[in-house]
């Protein structure tokens, strides 16, 4: 089996026009990222430290530990520059593009986290940058659009389909097919054609490299279980990578949305649980688990969390699930929203809605995860506050704070 595959998953299913660029990128990945040619990795580590703020801390969550009667540790990727793990990959790829002599960066974004990370990295490294973002996502993630524009990136609205991440990826691939000679496509997750799934994982593997050392130093042993949320799977693979050979249980927590069923007639899956419920298929350049109808048309996924809202998943993660090395689990929108408020109140950490799914699972399975549990806080939740407020009010969740204060001072609605 060639190195571009993970079991039966992976591969390079892209238009011919892109193949030479994919081969050029594969070569650059092997030389600069794997072999540290020209000191690439040294420069990457120095920049992710000075510009990004690595290493991120490992923190004992005192209230959660008490609540569950188990030691809970948080890997604080929310403290990375930009507020999410996404910078690891964005900085790595923009730097690689520079080493490859490319002079333009394009990227897709769903929730806007990868777009903002790419815009920051491109500004930092003085590269022109254009971000493709679905029109629906532009509407629901306005703060991130401001951030990208503020960092000097162009933001292009994608109006096809439902206007979310899936369409944004397709549109970025079309741009790349036109501009491949001078442009690098910074893909935002461990998805797409080889070498993207391996390369993006390698940049994010700093998370588990640090976390593994930090648990050993601070606790004196490895965790019993490691939890990370999973959409495309970038923080998941980054958090799991250095634990793969250890006797540590790994849980990829997907968005169960409102239901795990599918509406075939409407082409909609009201969840983003491609690991749990998807079937093998080919999407955006790789063979992986995909939410699709019986004919092979890709379904519209849905999650309250825009960053998990994707019909596919990284091929390596799909393979690890099939092998039984990683457990694919999921929690629904309500459990994620409750976990969002719980972590905010108990630990003073407002997590991204994506991240909140991992804490939802911790709440549900607290008795079965062992004595030492590590959870990756993949991002902070400032970007989600409006969504959370709205979704919480619709569901009348008792755990949520009331926002009467606005009514008092304004005499009106929220």
């Amino acid at each position: 089996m060639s190195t571009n595959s993970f079991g039966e998953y992976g591969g390079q299913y892209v238009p011919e026009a892109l193949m030479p660029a994919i081969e050029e990128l594969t070569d650059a990945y092997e030389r600069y990222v794997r072999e540290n040619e020209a000191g690439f990795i040294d420069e990457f580590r120095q920049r992710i430290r000075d510009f990004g703020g690595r290493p991120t801390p490992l923190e004992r969550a005192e209230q959660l530990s008490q609540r569950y009667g188990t030691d809970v540790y948080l890997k604080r990727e929310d403290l990375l520059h930009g507020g999410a793990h996404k910078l690891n990959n964005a900085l790595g790829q923009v730097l690689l593009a520079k080493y490859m002599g490319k002079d333009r960066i394009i990227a897709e974004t769903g929730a806007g986290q990868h777009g903002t990370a790419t815009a920051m990295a491109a500004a930092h490294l003085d590269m022109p940058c254009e971000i493709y973002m679905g029109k629906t996502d532009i509407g629901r993630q306005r703060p991130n659009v401001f951030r990208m524009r503020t960092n000097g990136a162009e933001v292009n609205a994608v109006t096809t389909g439902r206007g979310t991440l899936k369409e944004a990826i397709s549109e970025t691939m079309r741009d790349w097919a036109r501009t491949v000679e001078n442009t690098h496509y910074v893909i935002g997750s461990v998805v797409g054609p080889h070498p993207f799934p391996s390369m993006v994982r390698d940049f994010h593997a700093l998370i588990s490299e640090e976390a593994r050392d930090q648990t050993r130093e601070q606790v004196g042993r490895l965790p019993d279980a490691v939890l990370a949320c999973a959409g495309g799977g970038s923080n998941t693979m980054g958090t799991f990578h250095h634990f793969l050979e250890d006797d540590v249980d790994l849980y990829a927590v997907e968005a169960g949305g409102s239901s795990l069923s599918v509406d075939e007639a409407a082409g909609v899956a009201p969840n983003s649980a491609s690991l749990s419920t998807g079937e093998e298929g080919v999407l955006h350049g790789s063979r992986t688990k995909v939410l699709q109808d019986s004919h092979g048309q890709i379904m519209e996924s849905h999650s309250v969390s825009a960053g998990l809202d994707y019909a596919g998943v990284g091929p390596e993660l799909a393979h690890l699930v099939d092998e039984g090395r990683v457990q694919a689990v999921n929690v629904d929108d309500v459990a994620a929203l409750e976990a969002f408020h719980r972590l905010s109140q108990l630990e003073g950490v407002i997590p991204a809605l994506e991240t909140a799914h991992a804490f939802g699972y911790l709440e549900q399975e607290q008795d079965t995860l062992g004595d030492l549990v590590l959870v990756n806080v993949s991002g902070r939740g400032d970007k989600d506050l409006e969504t959370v407020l709205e979704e919480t009010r619709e569901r009348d969740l008792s755990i949520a704070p009331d926002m009467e204060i606005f009514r008092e001072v304004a005499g009106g609605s929220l």
Partner: protein
Amino acid sequence: MSLSEAFSREPAFVPYLAAGDPSFEASLAYVEALARGGADAIELGLPFSEPIAEGPTIQEAIVRSLEAGMTPERFFEFVEALDVEVPLVCMTYYNLVYQYGDGDGPRPFVQRAAAAGIAGFVIPDLPAEEAGPLRRACDEFGLDLVFIVAPTTRGERLERMQEYVSGYVYVQARLGTTGARDEVSDHTEESLARIADWEVPKAVGFGIKTGDHAQRIVSAGADGIIVGSALVDIVAQGHAADEDTATVADRLEAKARELKEGALTGARAVQ
């Protein structure tokens, strides 16, 4: 008639339409109009929800066709219902080929396509590296597998493709996605020169819109021309203006004649 026979007498005109756009019945009439207008082979698009190689014109055609209920099974019924003599090529994306039938790779799809009368495939997201299983199924059922040579395709990649290609080779005239353009790219002659010694006929596509374009491409040495978006535009305009099927079909037939005539003129210029 086989695909290579379709190119054997004179420069071939190969039009593309998305099957079922904007409806099953109208689309049948449109494809038959192209055949009357002089098509030597026809590429029929089986719509996929994520068409990453298509520009806006064909993306919209795909949406119209899917909304009108097109599925792989309906597509095969469409092919069976067509009253045309020329060979038909199915253009689609690999997931639809792969998912059809009972988990036996691409074989059930190819078997069904052969039974329906399809002569070959173009799969834009399937490079030669991943094409082994589909090539074997095509060999088993006697179908052709067309590959796309891009302006960026060189060296070993060309050799690998030459090994797998049959029917004709689709020369992509410029980088990017499908779509009609006012200017024809200058990559064409360069690309044709790189594959001059290939035995399969060379058909050039991407951006051809008028008889004059067709003429220039053929005089540059192409064995045929592939035209999609310029024809899909006619379908889209007819649909938007709510015109009757016969009117739109007549317009397609006239456009087909113009393009075929351009190709023939180009061939005379070479002689």
